[in-house]
């Protein structure tokens, strides 16, 4: 009998890699998640602790997928602390994905928001010219730079920004994105990270007429378009998103302003 894809299936953690002092990547074997599209996510069950949405990180091993998690509340900490050999449950992948255009792409990410961008890079056509802007507060928190370069030796320009200037360009990644967009030449912008950063990137791209998409986070309970916790205006981030076009987001009264708390209350950012 076929297993319902919405029932968590248990996977064994095969490797754990520290990316920064607070971010780890956990790898596991899963053919279906391994072929997720960029922007899609899984619901990840940490037995006895909780379940949370996670973008599906690429692996360099065929048939493997991974999660890159930052220590935060109970569940992300539980996932972060799952050792090699530990069990996690996964269901998904859920949601839509980035629409990868030809030409020159600007990718703007921060923190674990880089995860869908890494998958985008891994699935991009060979002739796409990619500039990856990676923002962090400080040099300690920068990760995935080498990984991206290894995944794609050609036609990838990795640019790091740090708020405190300890690595790469000093300043905010959205400012750097604006600067790069000002220089022109981009056919598309893809962004994932803190919502206020994304709001600025979307506005900058649109003001210059450049196609832009953002992958959005919301509180998620079901991932199935049932519970409503992820709603953003009349849309559901889990099934209508996670990726939305800039033109759609520009009209949104919620994007960059408010999300639903666990009780469902609209809560300002």
């Amino acid at each position: 009998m076929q297993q319902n894809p919405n029932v968590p299936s248990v996977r064994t953690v095969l490797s754990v890699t520290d990316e920064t002092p607070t971010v780890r990547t956990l790898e596991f074997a899963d053919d279906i998640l391994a072929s997720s599209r960029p922007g899609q996510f899984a619901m990840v069950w940490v037995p006895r602790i909780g379940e949370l949405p996670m973008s599906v990180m690429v692996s360099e091993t065929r048939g493997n997928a991974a999660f890159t998690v930052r220590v935060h509340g109970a569940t992300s900490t539980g996932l972060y602390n799952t050792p090699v050999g530990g069990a996690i449950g996964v269901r998904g992948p859920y949601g839509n994905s980035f629409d990868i255009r030809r030409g020159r792409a600007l990718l703007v990410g921060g923190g674990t928001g880089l995860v869908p961008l890494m998958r985008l890079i891994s699935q991009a056509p060979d002739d796409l010219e990619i500039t990856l802007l990676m923002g962090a507060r400080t040099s300690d928190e920068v990760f995935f730079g080498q990984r991206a370069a290894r995944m794609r030796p050609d036609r990838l320009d990795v640019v790091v920004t740090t708020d405190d200037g300890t690595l790469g360009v000093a300043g905010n990644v959205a400012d750097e994105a604006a600067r790069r967009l000002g220089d022109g030449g981009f056919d598309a912008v893809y962004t994932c990270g803190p919502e206020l950063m994304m709001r600025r990137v979307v506005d900058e791209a649109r003001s210059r007429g450049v196609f832009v998409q953002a992958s959005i986070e919301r509180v998620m309970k079901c991932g199935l378009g049932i519970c409503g916790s992820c709603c953003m205006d009349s849309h559901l981030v889990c099934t209508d998103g996670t990726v939305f076009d800039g033109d759609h987001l520009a009209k949104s009264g919620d994007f960059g302003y408010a999300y639903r708390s666990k009780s469902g209350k609209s809560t300002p950012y």
Partner: protein
Amino acid sequence: MPVPLSTNVGPLELESPTMLASGILGISTEVFGRILGEGAGAVVTKSLSTEPWEGYANPTVIGADNGGMLNAVGLSNPGAAEFASMLKKSPDVPVIVSLVGSAEPDFEAMVSEFKDCNVIGYELNLSCPHVAKVGLEVGDDVELVGRIVGAVKRATPSPVMAKVGLGSANYMDTVTAAVDAGADAITAINTIRAMAIDADTAVPVLSNKFGGLSGAPIKPIALRCVYEIAERGGIPIIGCGGISTWRDAVEFILAGASAVQIGSALSGGRTGVFSQVNAGIGRYMEQKGHSAISGMVGLAAKS
């Protein structure tokens, strides 16, 4: 000329017989507007309580390995007052407000919050199977049901529906108590108490351990409840439980429902289910020569 899909559930007049079930996407007026635009005859809000509730920790909603769904969201909701202030901003979106509470004062207080909102009815959740002190624990207390329904009827001129489910008492006694206290309709049924255990880790999957089973698996049970309530007679019925196709909806109407609610079938983004079910009911009515939903209600008992 297409057949009219309008239906009356007691005093409640609907343009189509398909409604959004409570707890499904029920926290945002924008989403309600979208669902009405898809053809739903009415939308029911998430069950609201006097205070905001965070609900249980995830996992709260998962698939059940038989095509159904298992949830224990724990009635998370922003509270009646907060919800009412959201509704006031969208007077063009009519809603049925679902209420949950432990005793009459809870319900009276909440109804008074919605005075200036576009509320076309109240549904009393007497049947949530996984939250202590409310839901089924209320529904199983027949005497309390009567008091609550009576209090809400006195507090509002709007239609009042009592939502029942399979608890540890005889649900038909709950129906009778609600009818006797003046309920305008019965919604049947809520989810059925159930659970999932993961064999690999030997752990119950839902954080609350127990949850409610919904979707296709409960359909034959829900259909039987609607039929039994219709056999009892004396009250309009809204059928709910596992409806995902026009054929399911027609079966519930033939069993005795004047309208149906759809929940789990929206899973995976299938908000188009309302227009599909409505279109199918319309085709069925044309083919069988029915000119109104009312002519189909309860036909299976007359065969």
